[in-house]
């Protein structure tokens, strides 16, 4: 007997649910967001500059500082008068800055109270927190597949034995690092040591963090996260510490700026319109042996450069603009918009109120062990080829999917503890630039296309900018921990799709996923 109308109705309800509900995720994800009009954006250099707040520990004891950070959604006005939902550590973007003294242990309880689904993309926002620049144990390193789901929390422990440097903590959750970080899960972490204290470089109010990233906004204030076929997320607004093209009031003296490119995919060529030099005093892994003045600072995603800018000779009332030069070559993968050539401005408003720590020493850290590494010490040489295959970004033809499929056993290299190796990073395809990040270690850049590294690269690094058709050689010592650590492109879109693999130092290190499992519930402060 054929189906009756009533039966057809009931089966129609079931059938439509079965077909349409799975499809609505595709359809809603494909809905084009309308970019906010340029005329609605603030004019560059009209928004006051600000630095992220420094958070104090919830408690301390003889050895350890204890923090609790809650990853949660909040609504902020990044563009004046326009509400934008963001995800921040403690609900702020960038998250709170953590200041730590070398040798003090830190425990951070990371609580995931994000919504169950991303408002546009619809995925579940699991997170994994990476303290970038720290040689953390594997289970506290933000291993991509070591995820903490909404409703869970995890305690991360850091020993902070490394040298003074600018670190940052950011999300590293598998396949959604770019979206989570773009929503705001990124913040500074500054490690101080006696050498830094002894140097007469600008400190305190003259030690300024600058997290530079770009974003694009929809007419409803939401962030637009178009990744251009997994190539990159590009914004038309340049943000510094979460503010669009801000203007900072400065005194006639030297300032130390900790520059971090927090963009998902955009690189920068920073230059001051006054023609002044910026003096690089530190890289990702801490102080350079000697300062390196540069007129243009090329920097990619996740690289940190500390520069000193001297405003002493700038007349009061004059403005200095930090610009972002377009790249001169034809392979520029950054997408330019009207004001992406501007970053921020400095208005010189007063004479120096303090003459202390107003110098650039001739020598900074001549004894950094990383910079003492010599090629003759290397016990192995490896090559990492960066490429794209079947729509996925790969390293030596493999991706994180291969690591997952192997049950996390597949490794690209297996050096013994304290082995020294030379890695050659080849980006022969010319399709994109790739800032490659190697977890756990600091490295020294030996050469770039057979030539000496750029001046700003003459210090310890953990991210290397590998431009189109470039080959870079690195030397590093593997330690201080055993275990599995990631290697990946820090274009977070590439990382998510799926330019990430891993190496293992020795054998028998802690399991990055199971050694410290997250827990369910709303925890008290640690």
């Amino acid at each position, binding site marked *: 007997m054929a*189906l009756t109308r009533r*039966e057809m109705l009931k089966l129609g*309800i079931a*059938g439509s649910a*079965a077909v349409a*509900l799975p499809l609505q995720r595709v359809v809603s994800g494909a809905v084009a967001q309308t970019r906010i009009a340029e005329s609605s954006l603030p004019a560059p250099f009209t928004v006051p500059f600000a630095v992220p707040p420094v958070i104090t520990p919830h408690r301390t004891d003889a050895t350890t500082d204890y923090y609790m950070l809650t990853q949660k959604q909040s609504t902020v006005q990044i563009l004046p008068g326009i509400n934008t939902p963001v995800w921040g550590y403690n609900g702020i973007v960038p998250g709170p800055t953590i200041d730590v003294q070398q040798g003090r242990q830190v425990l951070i309880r990371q609580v995931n109270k994000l919504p169950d689904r991303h408002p546009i993309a619809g995925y*579940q926002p699991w997170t994994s927190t990476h303290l970038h620049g720290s040689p953390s144990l594997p289970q506290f390193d933000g291993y991509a597949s070591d995820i903490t789901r909404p409703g869970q929390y995890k305690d991360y422990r850091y020993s902070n034995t490394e040298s003074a440097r600018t670190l940052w903590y950011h999300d590293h959750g598998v396949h959604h690092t770019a979206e989570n970080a773009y929503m705001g899960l990124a913040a500074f972490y500054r490690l101080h040591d006696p050498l830094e204290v002894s140097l007469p470089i600008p400190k305190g109010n003259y030690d300024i963090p600058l997290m530079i990233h770009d974003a694009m906004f929809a007419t409803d204030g939401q962030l637009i996260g178009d990744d251009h076929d997994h190539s990159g997320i590009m914004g038309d607004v340049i943000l510094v510490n979460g503010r669009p093209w801000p203007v900072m009031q400065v005194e006639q003296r030297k300032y130390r700026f900790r520059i971090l490119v927090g963009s998902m995919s955009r690189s920068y060529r920073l230059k001051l319109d006054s023609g002044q030099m910026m003096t690089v005093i530190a890289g990702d892994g801490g102080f350079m042996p000697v300062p390196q003045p540069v007129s243009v600072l090329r920097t990619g995603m996740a690289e940190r450069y500390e520069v000193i800018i001297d405003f002493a000779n700038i007349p009061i009332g004059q403005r200095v603009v930090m610009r972002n030069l377009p790249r001169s070559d034809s392979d520029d993968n950054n997408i330019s918009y009207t004001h992406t050539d501007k970053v921020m401005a400095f208005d010189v408003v007063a004479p120096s109120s303090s003459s202390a720590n107003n110098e650039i020493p001739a020598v900074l850290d001549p004894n950094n062990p990383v910079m003492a590494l010599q090629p003759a010490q290397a016990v192995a040489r490896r090559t990492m080829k960066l490429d794209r295959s079947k729509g996925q970004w790969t390293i030596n033809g493999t991706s994180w*999917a291969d690591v997952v499929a192997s049950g*996390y056993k597949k490794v690209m290299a297996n050096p013994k503890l304290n082995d020294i190796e030379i890695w050659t990073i080849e980006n022969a395809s010319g399709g994109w630039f790739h800032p490659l990040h190697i977890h756990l270690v600091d490295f020294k850049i030996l050469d770039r296309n057979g030539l000496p590294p750029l001046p700003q690269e003459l210090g310890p690094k953990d991210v290397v900018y590998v431009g189109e058709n470039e080959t870079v050689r690195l030397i590093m010592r593997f330690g201080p921990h055993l275990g599995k650590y990631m290697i990946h492109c820090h274009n977070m879109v590439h990382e998510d799709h799926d330019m990430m693999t891993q190496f293992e130092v020795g054998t028998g290190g802690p399991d990055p996923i199971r050694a410290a*499992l997250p827990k369910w519930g709303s925890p008290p402060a640690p």
Partner: protein
Amino acid sequence: MSIETEIQPVGSPAVGAPPAVAAKCSASRRAVALGAFTSAYAGLVHLVVAPEHLGHWWVFGVFMIAVGVGQIGLAGWVLRRPGTSSAMVGILGSLAIVAVYFVAHTRGIDIGPAGDDGHGGGHDAETAGPAAIAATVGELVTIGAFITLLPLMLRRRVVNLLGALGLGAWALWLLGGLG
């Protein structure tokens, strides 16, 4: 009266049967043929995509092969022995596969090497691709065709159950339970 006695073997209409009975037999034969065809079609789709799933994790690949072989086998069984048993197996089997599809493409299924121990990895809801949609449509048609082969009381219960499941799914979506 069970359907085994209602349905004439395909290709052998009842000689001298009244027009109403003959029409009913003809409709049943069409339902058997349609359900068998769509089941076999969905099975072929699963076999075609099995290598891709094997590449992700061997268990996924084996599951796809088992589903594909099962659906093609079901088609043969229904054609050879049309009846309540084979129709119910077809309905419940197809419903189970549709349910897996539904969960995998709305909430995600957290199993496999990226989700061992219930932790680690992280499985997203998959994007519903053309092959998955094509197979699901085939399975829904299979269910609809085989329902017409059930005895009246059983048929009413199955249709009511499916309607309730559909309403539940829509309600879950409206309440935000599907993200």
